[in-house]
Each structure stands twice: as structure tokens, then as C-alpha cells.
């Protein structure tokens, strides 16, 4: 966030170079300089656009990341993909407008007959290839990071139902509870409409957890944007992802796979707390959810037989 001033300066500098090159040196270099300037504006854009906290009205970019994974995903988009695609768009649009101006009927009465230019065609084939090759390297690294399930401390299982999530802590005596949307008058904070649940998933901060995701009926998808996770809950299949929050707070997410009538009414709420608080919460939750946990354990015991 604090590199905004620097980025603004560097992009303006490049655009100024481009302008000077165009005016005085009469070199073709100005196009390159211009594109560099645009690229840095592209890097600057998401830094202006991103918003703090959960999504804000009129937000333009990602929300503030709260996990190492989200930081990487957002970074890849904001620092590489967006500037590149922004530059390409500006280039195509600038070229388009220039052509429309320069070669309009009025300015250019006689059309040229040129229909081939092998060099040019090779260039505009190879440059995209190079750009895509450059994109693919961080892209592969990112996918690798998402897939890296090593060194997780404990496991949580999320099961999608029509239309709520249930969570299970198999490493903590099978603690099990349901997480339902809080509606209408029960809502503590009206700004959390469609986000707040009666029982949030509680996890300790700075700890890499394994999250198993599955579904009890139709497909669902468990996603929390600011934690950088989204994984489908597929019937008859257990998917796994890792989860690590590096900031305490409450994070909201959604079911992102169409699951019928109540699709919009099964949010995900994750409360990230300190380790001490987590231990306290566990002790309390085991008592509070003793009934549902026991029933779940009986059921899974019966199923295993």
C-alpha cells in the first residue's frame, strides 16, 4: 500500500520519457517507454482499488488479504496479471483509436493494398507466446503453493448441506456443530446481513490447518475470499485444502456452487483467534455442542460398522 507514491512517480517518469523521446529524439523507443509507463499505472491501479476489511461499497479490487495464500493470489493478480492485461488493453485501444483517426475515409482517400507482412506476423505471434510463458511460471508456483498440504497441525472437516455448513474437529474429540445463517431481528450487526452465522468456524491464528470439504447432498463450495480459499464440496468425494490466517478477526465467505433454493443463504463465517482464546473456545464448545458432537460420533461409528 505504501509504494503507491513510488509507483505513481515511476509511471509518470516513463510517460514523460516517452513524451520527450517522441518530441526530440525521433526514435521508435517512445512506444516502449509509453507501454512501460502504462504497465506501472497498471501496477498502481489495484493498490488504489483494494479495500480494507470485508468488501466495501464501490470497491474496485480485492479486499485486504488475511492469509499468506490470499496474499500470494492477490499479489499474482495485482502485480503481474492486471498490469499486463491493462497494458495490452491500452495498447489495443490506443492503436485502434489511432487507426480510426489516421485512416478514416477523410484522411486517407486511397486504401493501401498491403495484405501481408511476415515479420510483423511473426512478432505478434511470438510476443504473446513469451508473455504467456512468463505468466505461466508464477502461475505454476502459485498452484503448487495451493496444493502444498505438508505440515498441517490439525484437521477440520466442513460438510455442505442444503443450506448450511456443519463443521467437525476430528482431532478435538470429534467436536461437531452446525453453522446457520442468522436472519432478521436476530442479527447483531445489520451490516453483516447474509454473512453472519450462529456458530462461526473458529481457528487459531498463524497455524496451518488441514480442511476437509465434502457434501451431504448436492454440490456446494466453501469459500472465504480474504483467506484465499475456495473448494467445492462434492458428493461422495472429500477434498482437502490448507488454511492459515495470519491476522485475527472475523472473515466472511460464501457458498459458491449453485445448490438450490437457499444458495445465497449459507454463508461461511470464520473467526480467527489467538491460541489461548482457541483453547478456551474449544473447552466451552465441547460442552455447548456435546449433544450434536456425540450424535455425529455415534452416526459415524455406526456407518463405519
Amino acid at each position, binding site marked *: 500500500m505504501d509504494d503507491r507514491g513510488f509507483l505513481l512517480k515511476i509511471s509518470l517518469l516513463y510517460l514523460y520519457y516517452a513524451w520527450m523521446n517522441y518530441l526530440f529524439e525521433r526514435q521508435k523507443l517512445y512506444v516502449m517507454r509509453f507501454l512501460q509507463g502504462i504497465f506501472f499505472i497498471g501496477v498502481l491501479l489495484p493498490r488504489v482499488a483494494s479495500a480494507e476489511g470485508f468488501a466495501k461499497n464501490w470497491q474496485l479490487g480485492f479486499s485486504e488479504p488475511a492469509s499468506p495464500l490470499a496474499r500470494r493470489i492477490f499479489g499474482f493478480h495485482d502485480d503481474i496479471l492486471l498490469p499486463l492485461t491493462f497494458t495490452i488493453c491500452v495498447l489495443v485501444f490506443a492503436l485502434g483509436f489511432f487507426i480510426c483517426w489516421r485512416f478514416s475515409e477523410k484522411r486517407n482517400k486511397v486504401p493501401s493494398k498491403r495484405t501481408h507482412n511476415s515479420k510483423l506476423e511473426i512478432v505478434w505471434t511470438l510476443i504473446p507466446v513469451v508473455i504467456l510463458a512468463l505468466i505461466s511460471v508464477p502461475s505454476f508456483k502459485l498452484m503448487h503453493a495451493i496444493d502444498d498440504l505438508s505440515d498441517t497441525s490439525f484437521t477440520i472437516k466442513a460438510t455442505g448441506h442444503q443450506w448450511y455448513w456443519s463443521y467437525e474437529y476430528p482431532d478435538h474429540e470429534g467436536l461437531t456443530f452446525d453453522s446457520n445463517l442468522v436472519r432478521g431481528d436476530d442479527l447483531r450487526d445489520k451490516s453483516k446481513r447474509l454473512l453472519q452465522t450462529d456458530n462461526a468456524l473458529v481457528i487459531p491464528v498463524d497455524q496451518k490447518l488441514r480442511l476437509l470439504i465434502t457434501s451431504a447432498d448436492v454440490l456446494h463450495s466453501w469459500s472465504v*475470499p480474504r483467506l484465499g480459499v475456495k473448494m467445492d464440496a462434492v458428493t461422495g468425494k472429500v477434498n482437502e485444502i490448507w488454511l492459515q490466517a495470519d491476522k485475527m478477526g472475523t472473515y466472511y465467505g460464501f457458498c459458491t456452487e449453485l445448490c438450490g433454493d437457499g444458495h445465497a443463504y449459507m454463508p461461511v463465517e470464520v473467526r480467527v483467534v489467538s491460541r489461548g482464546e482457541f483453547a478456551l473456545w474449544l473447552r466451552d464448545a465441547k460442552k455447548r455442542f456435546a449433544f450434536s458432537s456425540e450424535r455425529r460420533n455415534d452416526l459415524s461409528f455406526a456407518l463405519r460398522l
Partner: protein
Amino acid sequence: MVSVAVKGKDNKGVVAKDTSRSGDDHGTPSRYSIKRWLFSTNHKDIGTMYLVFAIFAGLVGGSLSFFMRLELQQPEVQYFLNAGEPDGHMWAVFITAHGLIMVFFTVMPALIGGFGNWFVPLLIGAPDMAFPRMNNISFWLLVPAFGLLVSSMLFGGAGTGWTLYPPLSGLLGHSDPSVDLAIFAMHLAGVSSILGAINFIVTILNMRAPGLALHKMPLFVWATLITAFLLLLTMPVFGGAITMLLADRNFATSFFVAEGGGDPLLFQHLFWFFGHPEVYIMILPAFGIISHIVSTFSRKPVFGYLAMVYAMVSIGFFGSIVWAHHMFTVGMSLAAQSYFTIATLIIAVPTGIKIFSWLATMWGGSISFRVPMLWSLGFIGLFTIGGVTGVVLANGGVDTQLHDTYYVVGHFHYVLSLGSVFAIFAGFYYWFSKMSGCVIPEWAGKVHFWTTFIGVNLTFFPMHFLGLAGMPRRYIDYNEAFAGWNAVASYGSYLSLSSTLFFVVTVVCVLLRGRSAVAANYWGKGADTLEWTVSSPPPYHSFSNPPRIT
């Protein structure tokens, strides 16, 4: 574009005379005879019926989206209520119907059935399609297909999304027969497409005028040929998948039922094996139309003709092997994700070649900004935006963030609604006088273009912001944090819907006013393909004597 020189001194004169000799209105049934339309075997009449059908279906699909935007204009549920409670099922029925109608009953019939039927035979100098009766049944299968889809609403409606994913589309999610009816609708639409595809392939490969080699074929014909191959390859897979779903629902099989040892993900793979080529089926003919128009109004042949052809061929090929990039979040292996990421990124290369070649076609040209050209320029610009957001989404890692958010909705509407649909309008204004002999006033076309252009951008551009902020798609209601851009999107959609109504009223008025004397080649010098050598409208039977291309 291939420049056409017909044997003889003045090519236009010769051909026009030739066809008029073969009987201008000779044997033309009356416009009001029911037989002419119901039993039609004439490619022009069938093309007209396809276009009328597509416009009708487009209005139905468009009004569905109007109700969706009306609901989403502000948070909380105002319209989709059932006994005072939000009716999420009806919402899902609307989004499903909107998707299916726009894909199967608007864009495909307009581009392939409409313009393909009308202009492929004219562009290759053929008297008609290879199998005229099959052509007739291709069209008339589409009408009951649409009827079946609408009738599924009577049983509660299919609220599965156009992707029809089980188990939601299985008995668990929809115990009434609505999904069965939707499946039958897709069966008929699929048969219609397959028959149409066979017809196009045979026509293009066998009935080209003497001298019209494959590498001289106009780009719209190439696009239709590749599209037809894609349809023929992938539509049966889709048919198989939905038939398996039908068996799961009715005959207690468990292809996709996990409890019976099936796998819901198998359906997704089969669906997208069809579904991804399907998006190229919708965009390739659009590419073809845009190439013709850009060349005509720049008064220059298409730049890099062969590169354009093989760009489309490779888009068709790569488009068929990237399907699982729609499934990055289902829990695929890292290897599969990597493959589908890189294969998807590769498609950006031929797509880039097309964009640059259109710009190079304009470079050095003498560009006149008539209405079809405006739509084409709009297409090039907006398709570029849709293309680069596609590059963003191709990356499996970033897609875990953006999948099933409004970013995806923004992306595919930029390539389809602002891509394919813009090309449909471009083609419509380009060929309307050729097809009808009537003239749409230039001002009306411009009003239509600018209002639509502003409207659709207001609607779909903010969707990228909503998606980045995390708003999921297919939601009936949303948190207040997403209210601002949703309101803008809704206002934009009202503007584009009004613009569409303006377009329909204009066309109806123009048609009622009747024909005026339109030259065979009313766009002048730049238009050098064969359809401009026949009168406007063309005789009922054109090219009884095939033109000779040198």
C-alpha cells in the same frame, strides 16, 4: 478476403444477369403461403426463419435478464417472493432459462442457422444447402425444443444453472419432471445442431463454385466450417451426458450418483468437453462476420488471410482440449490443473493474432464508419477486454479466487454478450438490406449502437469489481457492501434492453414500409465477396449456373 473475378468483363453484371435469367421470381411461392415456411427447403427462407426465431428467443432471454437485474438492483429480495419468502428456486429457474435460451436459442440460431444458412451458399456460389430437407428439420426441431424448455416451467422449472450439474439436477435436487423436460429440450436442440453441422460441412466441402479453393474461401465460410466440425465432435458428448443424467433420474442408474458408485464430477467433465467448445461455436462465426465487415469498410482485403484461417483452426483445436479450466475448484490434481492452465493460456495466441490482424486490416485502409463497422469496432475493443480477463481466469491459482464470482459473469458476457451479440448486430446491419431489400436508416442504427454500447458496458464492467470483491454469481440476494455496482449494472441493463426494443421496433417499421431500390453491392468497393454479385434481395434461387472464380 478473396477477390472474386467472375468470367467475363464485368463480374457483377454477368452474375446478376445470369441469375435473373434463371428466373428471378420464377417459382417463388407467395410470402403468405404457409407451405413456403412450414415445408421450406430454401436456404434463404430457412435462414430468415432462424433469424426471426433467434430475435424472438433473444427477447425472451433478455426479459429474463431484465427481471434478474431488477431484483439485483438493490439488496434484499423485492420481486422473487413466494408467500413473502425469497424464492431462490424461481431465481435459479430464471438464471438457468436465461443461459440456455441465450446459448441454444439465440446466439447459435442467429449465427449458424441464420447467417450461416443465408450466406454460406451465397458466399461459395452454391444454389442451396446440400440437404435442403434436412435443413428444414434442423430448424423445425428448434421450435419444439424451445417449447419443451418453456414447458419445464410448468412443473416448477429447472433451477440447475445452464450447466445442469448433478446432484442438483438429479432426483435429489429436482424430483419433478422439469429437468427431464429441459433434457429433452437439449436433446432436440442438439439433434438440430448436429444435422445443421452435417449440412454445412457437406455444403462447404462439396458445393463450392468452380475455382473457389479452400484457401480462397471467405472467412465467414471458414468459420462456419470449423464451427460445424466442433458441433459434430462435441454435441454428441453433451447428448450422451444428459442422456445418462436422464437415466439416473428415471431408470435408477447411477452414472453420477455417488451413493451408487457414480461420480458427479464425471458429468462436469462430459458437460465441459462440450461446453467449452460451445463458447467457440458461438464466437468463431462472429470472427468470420467481423473479418468481412472490417475488410469491407476499410476497403482493403483481410490482412494475413491464411494466418486468420489457421488461427481459427487452432482456436477450434485448442478450444476442445481445455474444458476442465471450468473445474479448477472441484479438487483436481496439480498436474491436471497445470495442464489445463497452460493449454488455456495458449489460446490467447491465435486470439491475439485475430485482433492484431483486424487492426492491420484497418491500417492503411480508407475507413468509413457505417453502422456495421461501428458494431465491429465495438466487438474488437470489448472482445479484447473479455479476452484478457480470460487470460486472468486461465490461471488455476487465481481462478480459485475468482471462480463462480461475478468476475466470471463479467468475463463471459464480454466475450459472448458484447462479442457474439455485437457480431450478430454487425452482421444484421451489414446484410439486412441484402436479405430484405429494405433499408434501416443510418441514424437508427447509430442510436441503437451507442445506447447498447453504453448500456452493456455499464452492466458488465462493474461485474469485474464485484467479482474481485468476492460477490458470488447466481445469488438472489447480497450483502449491502455490493449494492453500489449492482445498481449501476441494473441501470445499464435497462438502457440496453430499451435499446433492443428500439431495434426491434425499427426493424418492424422498416419491414412494414417495404422494399426500396437497393443496389446489388450497396456498400461499394470494399465488399468483394459473392453475395454482393446477386440482387438485393437475391432471387429465390440464386446461382443456378455456378459463378466461376479465378
